[in-house]
C-alpha cells in the first residue's frame, strides 16, 4: 500500500472515530428535553404545568408525566423550566391524576412557597390530608415542596392521553415561590408514582422529562 493510501486510511479511520464520539455525546445530550421559558408576569414569571396519569404517546405512553405550557398556550412535554432570578414565580398545576397517597406524611405540608401556602381549587391551604395527594412538586435546594391533590377515583371524564383539557376531571393547584441567584436546581416528584414498577420508583420517576427535571434560574 502506498504512503498516500495509508495516510488516507488513517485519516478516514480518524474521521470515523471522531464521528462516533460525536454521536455518542449527542446521544447523551439528546436525552434532555428542550427547556421551556416561563411566561413573563408582573414581578416575575408564570409557570403553567399539568400532571397526567399516562402520557399517551411514544416513547412511553403508559408513563405518568408532567407537561408545561408556553406563552401561546401550547403544551410541551418537558420538565426543564427557565425562570428569572430574584423574582416571584407563580406556578399553576392542573392535576389530572388520581390520588395515591403519601408514604411519608411529612410531604403533605406546603413548604418554601410565599406564606407557606398553596391554593387548591381556590381554597388556601397549608397542608393536604396525606391520602389525598397524587404527586408533589419539590425543589429541595430552594426548599420548595408542594403536595398536589389528586382527583377522585370515581370522577367522571378522566384524562388518559396528554395534553388534558380543562373539561376533563382535574384539580387546580397554585403557589408562588421566590428565586434567588442564577443556577440550575433539580426538582422532583417525591411520590413513588411509577405504576407497575418495583416500589413505584422506576421509569418516569428517574427520568428527566417525566417526573423530575430542572428549574434553571437565569
Amino acid at each position: 500500500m502506498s504512503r498516500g493510501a495509508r495516510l488516507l486510511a488513517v485519516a478516514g479511520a480518524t474521521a470515523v472515530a471522531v464521528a462516533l464520539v460525536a454521536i455518542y455525546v449527542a446521544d447523551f445530550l439528546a436525552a434532555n428535553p428542550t427547556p421551556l421559558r416561563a411566561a413573563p408576569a408582573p414581578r416575575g414569571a408564570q409557570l403553567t404545568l399539568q400532571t397526567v396519569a399516562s402520557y399517551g404517546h411514544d416513547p412511553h405512553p403508559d408513563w405518568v408525566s408532567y407537561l408545561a405550557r408556553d406563552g401561546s398556550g401550547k403544551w410541551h412535554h418537558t420538565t426543564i423550566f427557565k425562570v428569572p432570578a430574584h423574582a416571584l414565580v407563580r406556578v399553576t398545576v392542573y392535576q389530572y391524576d388520581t390520588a395515591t397517597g403519601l408514604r411519608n406524611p411529612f410531604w403533605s405540608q406546603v413548604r418554601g412557597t410565599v406564606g407557606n401556602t398553596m391554593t387548591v381549587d381556590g381554597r388556601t391551604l397549608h397542608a393536604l390530608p396525606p391520602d389525598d395527594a397524587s404527586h408533589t412538586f419539590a425543589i429541595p435546594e430552594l426548599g420548595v415542596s408542594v403536595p398536589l391533590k389528586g382527583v377522585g377515583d370515581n370522577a367522571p371524564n378522566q384524562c388518559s392521553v396528554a395534553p388534558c383539557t380543562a373539561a376533563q376531571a382535574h384539580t387546580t393547584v397554585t403557589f408562588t415561590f421566590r428565586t434567588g441567584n442564577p443556577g440550575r436546581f433539580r426538582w422532583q416528584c417525591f411520590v413513588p408514582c411509577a405504576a407497575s414498577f418495583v416500589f413505584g420508583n422506576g421509569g418516569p420517576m428517574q427520568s428527566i422529562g417525566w417526573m423530575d427535571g430542572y428549574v434553571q434560574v437565569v
Partner: protein
Amino acid sequence: MSDVAFEQHAPRPAAAPPWWRRLIGFNLLAASALGIGGWFLGHWVGTRITIGMDSQLGTDQNDIATFMGFLFAVSGWLIGLGFLNYPLGRMLGRPPSLREKEEEGPGRYFRLCTDHKVVGMQYFVTILLFFLIAGLNAMFIRAELLTPKEKLWNANQYLSLVGLHGTMMLMMMSAAILGPFANYFVPIMIGARRMAFPRLESLSFWLVPPAGLILLSAVALGGFPTGWTGYAPLANTARAGMDAYLFAFALIGLSMTIVGANMLATVLTMRAPGMTWTRLPIFVWGVICTSVLMVLAAPVLFATLSMVALDRTADTSFFLASAGGSPFLYTNLFWFFGHPEVYILALPGFGVVLEILPVFSRKPLWGYRLAVAGMLGVTLLSFMVWQHHLFVSGMNADLRPFYMLTTELISVPTGFIFLNGLGTLWRGRIRFTVPMLFAMAFFSNFLIGGLSGVFLSDVPSDVSTHGSYFVMAHFHYTIMGGLVFALFAATYYWLPKMTGLRFNETLAKIHFWGMFVFFNFTFAPLFVAGMLGMPRRVSVYSSSLQGINDFVSVSAFLLGLSMLVFLINLVYSTVFARVPAEANPWHSRGLEFQLPTPIPVRNFERTPVIESGPYEYGVPGAPPVAALGRPAVAGGGGSSP
C-alpha cells in the same frame, strides 16, 4: 483433538479468490448482519412472550424483550462467525480438524481463527478500543467536575458516565493482559503449538466485542444509575440500560470463565519436555493464579447477574427485601467476585513486571519461589477478604475484625512481589528501556495503592473514608497504576515481537513520562479530596474543593493526551514508519524470543526441549533455554550476555 488429526489437514495451496468473494462467508460481516437481525428478532419474540404479563406491560419498559434481543443478537453474532459449524459438522460425522481455522493473511483477524497468536492480536485491538472509550468517559467525568455545580451533564447522565467508565474498564481490563499477551505467548512460553481448547479460546474473544457494544447501548436505553457494582435494589428499579449492564457483564463473566479454564488446561497439560514447574516463566505463574481466580469467581458473577435479571423479568425477588429477598445477599455475592476481580487485574501485572525486570537488569529473577508463593498466597487470600467492602453496610460487627485481618494479611504475599523486584534490581546492570520504565513505575504506583489500601482495610479508618474520593484514589493507584502500567510495559516489551515492527522510542518515552507524571497529578490529590469529605459518584461538591478538582481535571486531560501520544506512536510505527524489529530486540532468554519474527503458525518446527530456566542472565555456563532443533535467531539471547 489429537495432533494426528491436525497433521492430516495440511494447508491447501489454492488461488486466492477475488476480494468480494472473501467477504461472503462466516466472518465479521456475517456476524454483524446476523447480530443486528438477531436483536430485532429477539426483541419481537420477547414482545410476543410478554403479552398478558402485567409485570412487563404497563411499564413501557419490556425487560424480557430487551434481554431476548441481546440473547438473539449474540447468538446471531456467533453463528455468523461460524461457531456452530464445527459442532454441527461433528454431529454429521465429519472428522475433527483445525485446518480451516489456522491460516495466513489479514482475513483471519476478522473471523473465527484458532491460531492463538491471531486471538492475541484480536484481543489487543479490541481491548485498546474499549480502553480508549472508557478513558473518554473519564474525560467527560472530569470535565463535569471542573465546576462544583451540575454543568455539562445532569445527575442521571453523570451517573451513567461513571457506571459506563467503571464497568467498561473493569470488564475489559479483566482480560487486558490475559487476552492479548497470555493468549499470544503462554503456549509459546511453555513450548506448545496451541492452546488446549482453540475454539473456546476464540469464543472467549468473540464474546468481548458484543459485550462492549451491548454495554454502550445502555446510553440509548436510559443509562444505569448503579455504577459498576450494580447494587440491588437500585438495579431492580433502574431503567432498561440496566439490562444492558447485566447482559454485558454476564457475557464477560462467561468469557472470563472460559479463558481461565483454557489457560489452566493449557499450562497443566501442554508443557514441553523439560518445562518443569520451577522453569515456568513467572508470567505464566501469574496467568495460572489469575486463571484460578477467574474460574472460581467469574461464575459467581454470572449467577448473581442472572438473578438480578430474573428479578427484573420473571418477578423473582432474590434481592427485594419487601418480598422476602435480601439486597445484602447481592452485595456479598457481588464482592465475592468483585474482590478477586481486583487480583484478576493485579496478578497478570505482577507476572509481567517480574518477567521484564530480569531482562533489563541482566540478572536472574531474585526469589523465584518466593514470587510464586506470593502469587499463590494472594490467590488464596483474595477469596477471604470481600466483606471489607461492606464494613459500613450494617454487617455483623463481630465479623469485621476477621476481614480486617485477612485484608491486612494479603499485604504480606503482595510484599513478596516487591521483594522480588527490589532483589532483582539490586546490583543489576539496569537498562532504562521503555518497558523497564513502565515496570518500575508499576512498583511505585502499586506501593501507594497498597499502602492506602491498608487504611481502607482498617475498620476505624474505613468508616470515615468509605464512599469518598480516598477510595477512588486508592483503587486507581492499584488498577491504573498497577495493571495499566503493566499493560503498557507488556505492550512495549512484546508488541515488537507480535507485529515485527519497532516502536518510535522518543514518542514512547514521551508517553511514559506524560502518563507517569499526570497519573500521579491526577490521583494523588484525590486522596486529599477524599479526606476532606468529597463523596464518589456525585457531580455536585463543596465549592471549597474546586481548586483541587480543577487541578485534577487538567491533569486528567493531560493524562488523556499522553494516551493519545501512545495511539499516535502505534499508528505511526505500524502504518507509516514500519521499521522491522529484531527477532530478539531485548536479548531476552524468553522462549518466545528464540523464535523468528513473525512467529510461524505452528510456533515450533518440532517440540522444543527445555534445558534451563528463563532467567539465568549473567550465570556463567548457563545453557541455552531450549533445544529448538535449529540455531537460535540472529541477535538471540539464548545464552546469557
